[in-house]
């Protein structure tokens, strides 16, 4: 993915574990995490972020039940799902929250009439 990123993809946010792009051609956000790449609509992205942020990480950390070792997260309108450990949930949360913050910044720039975040030439 890293070597052949389409030109229409603009990087929104990146961490060591993944990256979120925006494609203005398809109006999709592209989540690249844990070796997989998933295009999401803005609504599905927001829903998935909410899903990840409501995972009970305290329960995962404190419980001795094997069922609490992993969390299964289904991406909206996709056949893909993530089976994540506690650390991976935290990494995904960091990535999605960071991307969400950058998207919010982009909205604020547009609202106040400033140039929005980088547009490909």
């Amino acid at each position, binding site marked *: 993915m890293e070597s052949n990123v389409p030109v229409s993809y*603009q990087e929104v946010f990146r961490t060591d574990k993944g990256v979120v792009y*925006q494609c*203005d051609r398809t*109006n999709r*956000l592209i989540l690249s995490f844990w070796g997989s790449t998933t295009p999401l*609509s*803005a*609504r599905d992205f*927001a*829903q998935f972020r909410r899903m990840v942020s409501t995972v009970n990480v305290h329960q995962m950390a404190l419980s001795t039940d094997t069922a609490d070792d992993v969390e299964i997260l289904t991406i909206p309108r996709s056949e893909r799902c993530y089976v994540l450990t506690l650390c991976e949930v935290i990494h995904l949360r960091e990535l999605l929250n960071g991307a969400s913050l950058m*998207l919010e910044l*982009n*909205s604020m720039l*547009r*609202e106040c009439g400033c140039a*929005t*975040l*980088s*547009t490909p030439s």
Partner: protein
Amino acid sequence: MKDLDRLRTLIKEPVELVLNQQIKMEMVSSSKYLAMAGWCDRNGYDHSAGFFYKQSEEERKHAMKLFHYLCDQGATAYSPDVPPVGQEFDTLRSVFESALDQEIAVTDSINRIIGVCRREGDYATEELMKWYVKEQVEEEYIARRCLELIDQIPADQVYYLDKKLASVTYDENPFEDE
């Protein structure tokens, strides 16, 4: 870079969140009023029961108005989980006291939503919420007036009290021009 969230909806996430919380609150209110109606019905207060059945329907309509607004504007409305509500009351007075408590809680919540709308610059939703502000003035008046009547009408005139409670309305709308 396109603002995809703005293309999707005019409602920002914090407003969407509080509106969904309000939908839940209205549905809980509806459930509480239904429990009050049931209590009144089985204790012989037929007119008060009718009053609370109507209130229960109204609260559901309030929730649905917000639900449709969110859906129409491209935001996400969630069908809420409604927790169990109390089914038993000590007296008719305690039923109306609970009703007033519930209305005050709803008013406070509406005011908080308007605060969020102003913070987020969402004037469209604020305009919608003004309808709820007016509605709450009426609802609180009715609940208070009912409690006044319970104090004023002698305890031995139960049938008259029940009938009178169900007939309380708020006609003096202070928001309309004369």
